[in-house]
């Protein structure tokens, strides 16, 4: 999905912030804790829209690389050089990446 269409869909339920001309983000709460928030970036890679944590989870977790990869697989999320990322098609992809980050942190 092109980023324009993805932003249109996501903006129905989320507050989108423009970071740069080509990257947007949404802020999500972790574990229903108002004080634990994380930013999920929305960016277009090769014509598809991706959601990514920009390496945040891996930097702040005590888990090792193998353990992180295992969790990512469970939630159908990719591990790309310490970035947690997934292709965006609909709301369930966002839910999956949040669940995955929750589990890693």
């Amino acid at each position: 999905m092109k980023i324009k269409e993805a932003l249109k869909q996501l903006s129905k339920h989320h507050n989108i912030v423009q970071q740069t001309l080509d990257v947007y983000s949404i802020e999500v709460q972790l574990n229903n804790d108002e004080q634990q928030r994380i930013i999920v970036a929305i960016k277009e890679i090769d014509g598809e829209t991706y959601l990514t944590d920009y390496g945040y989870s891996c930097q702040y977790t005590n888990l090792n690389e193998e353990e992180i990869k295992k969790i990512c697989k469970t939630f159908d999320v990719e591990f790309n050089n310490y970035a947690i990322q997934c292709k965006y098609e609909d709301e369930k992809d966002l839910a999956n990446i949040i669940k995955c980050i929750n589990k890693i942190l």
Partner: protein
Amino acid sequence: MKSLSLIKENSKNYDKLRNEMIKEAEHKFGKNIFTDFQLPIDFSLNNLDDSIFRNRTTQTLPLPYSNEIFELLKKMPKKAINDVYNFNNKGYNITGVYLIGKYDNKPVLFAFNICRFLAYKDYLNFSIKLDVCVGGKTWLQLLRLDSYGPSHPNYFQNKKVCQKESEVQYVKTPHLHINSQENEILTHNIIDYSPAIELDFNFENFRSDDKTLLKKCFEYFKKYANIEIAINKKIENDYHYDFNNPLYDYSKISQVYSVKEFCK
């Protein structure tokens, strides 16, 4: 309790909180923690390694330095004293260098680093950080510039705490976190939040692969914190940044020399 309510509550008890926090810090780190920011006379560069840059340091206790000392540390001219540490860690490229300032003819040690995420061919996600060594061994984060983040709430307007949620404005990226006395005291019990100020430029009109994002922030930070280092043009590339300091004598790299000598 919401962050704003906590800050308002802290603001009401400001003096009491400050005294309590100072006592607690003195108990943990020693009586002179708020005055002893110069290095011990026998300190040697041999004692330095890359651990400050390699390990994520979390400040376990707020250290409310007086605004005078904070300003003094911020404004003090700082020069690089060692060759840089440059390595990759968990998907980040980290470039760090130790800096020395001088106060009352004695050295003050700082650690400066740029941390940049490598997974994407862009320059959106990086941070620039300056820590100061206090009491000869405790690291205190003074400043941190974040290039990337959400609409960061700013609970202060005209240096006063906002009274209503509707008054809270949002800081754009990049932004600068300042660990001044006021910030340490007012936000000490708010998890994962430290106040930030907006810079006089933001990234909304740049593409994320624009190298000037990092350069602009680096130049801003350097000027703000009075740091005398420069990006080394010769080795600049997509993934590695290094610095050269025109004041640093590279012929001395292999020599062991004390900080005391540097400050003569």
